[in-house]
């Protein structure tokens, strides 16, 4: 049985981000959330796939309720990762939010073409980064019905 989003005691969010600074800002923004969030962080697409597929050190990883994905990552970048996950029938229902510094229209089009759930641009200064994550939380964790 599904528990309504508002009654879930804790949500698992997977952040795929290689910048230590952005990880820290995201952690702080999530910590301030009124909803208990378990934030998991991985730094590249290969490790993110292992997490979703419960492989290796991620054997006991939970299935995330939401994924935040940067596009420019080492090893396997966010574009490739997105395409793999959204064409995998067992993983494609997990909402994926692109959170990136890129504003290239090719990236925006590519991501929607490959079924990213939405594309949010990372702002430059950290104060606004915090507010972007906060607004994103407010919408995705409080308004949206997550699978």
């Amino acid at each position, binding site marked *: 049985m599904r528990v309504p989003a508002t009654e879930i005691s804790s949500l698992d969010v997977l952040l795929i981000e290689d910048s230590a600074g952005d990880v820290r800002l995201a952690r702080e923004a999530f910590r301030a959330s009124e909803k208990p969030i378990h934030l998991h962080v991985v730094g590249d697409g290969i490790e993110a796939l292992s997490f979703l597929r419960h492989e290796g050190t991620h054997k006991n990883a939970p299935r995330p309720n939401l994924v935040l994905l940067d596009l420019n990552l080492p090893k396997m970048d966010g574009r490739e990762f997105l395409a793999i996950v959204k064409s995998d029938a067992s993983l494609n229902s997990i909402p994926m939010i692109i959170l990136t510094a890129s504003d290239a229209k090719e990236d925006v089009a590519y991501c929607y073409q490959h079924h990213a759930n939405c*594309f949010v641009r990372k702002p430059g200064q950290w104060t606004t980064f915090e507010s972007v994550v906060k607004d*994103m939380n407010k919408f995705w964790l409080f*308004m949206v019905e997550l699978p």
Partner: protein
Amino acid sequence: MDILLVEDSPGDIRLTVEAFRDANPAVHINVVRDGTEAMAYLRRHGKYVLAPRPDLILLDLNMPKMDGREVLALIKADESLKLIPTVILTTSAEEPDIMHSYRLHANCYLQKPVELQGFEHLVKSVNNFWLEQVRLPQQACGQ
């Protein structure tokens, strides 16, 4: 900003249109009442030959003729239409509906609140997030 609202309930149409008028007067809402009309609109068939391409689609699931699930599947299988963010807005909070919609690549799933205030709050949130914070494909393409 153009929104296509695919909704058969006159009450919900009125609520949505009025709530958007309050939240963001720059939004233009086009309404169609079933899935067949929605596809005709998006494909610019018949009387919809001059219909603008919506920036966002709000899609109810349970509708006459062609229901929202079928519309969603058609949108997300179309190379051009699949770029348009499609938000499910429905009374159902059934797990199979939620799961099925995300599998069909709905961009997000919202349950219609029962109370008027909740409805207004939801529309405001959709406006604040999808129209003000999210990078939409058409904006990026400069259309």
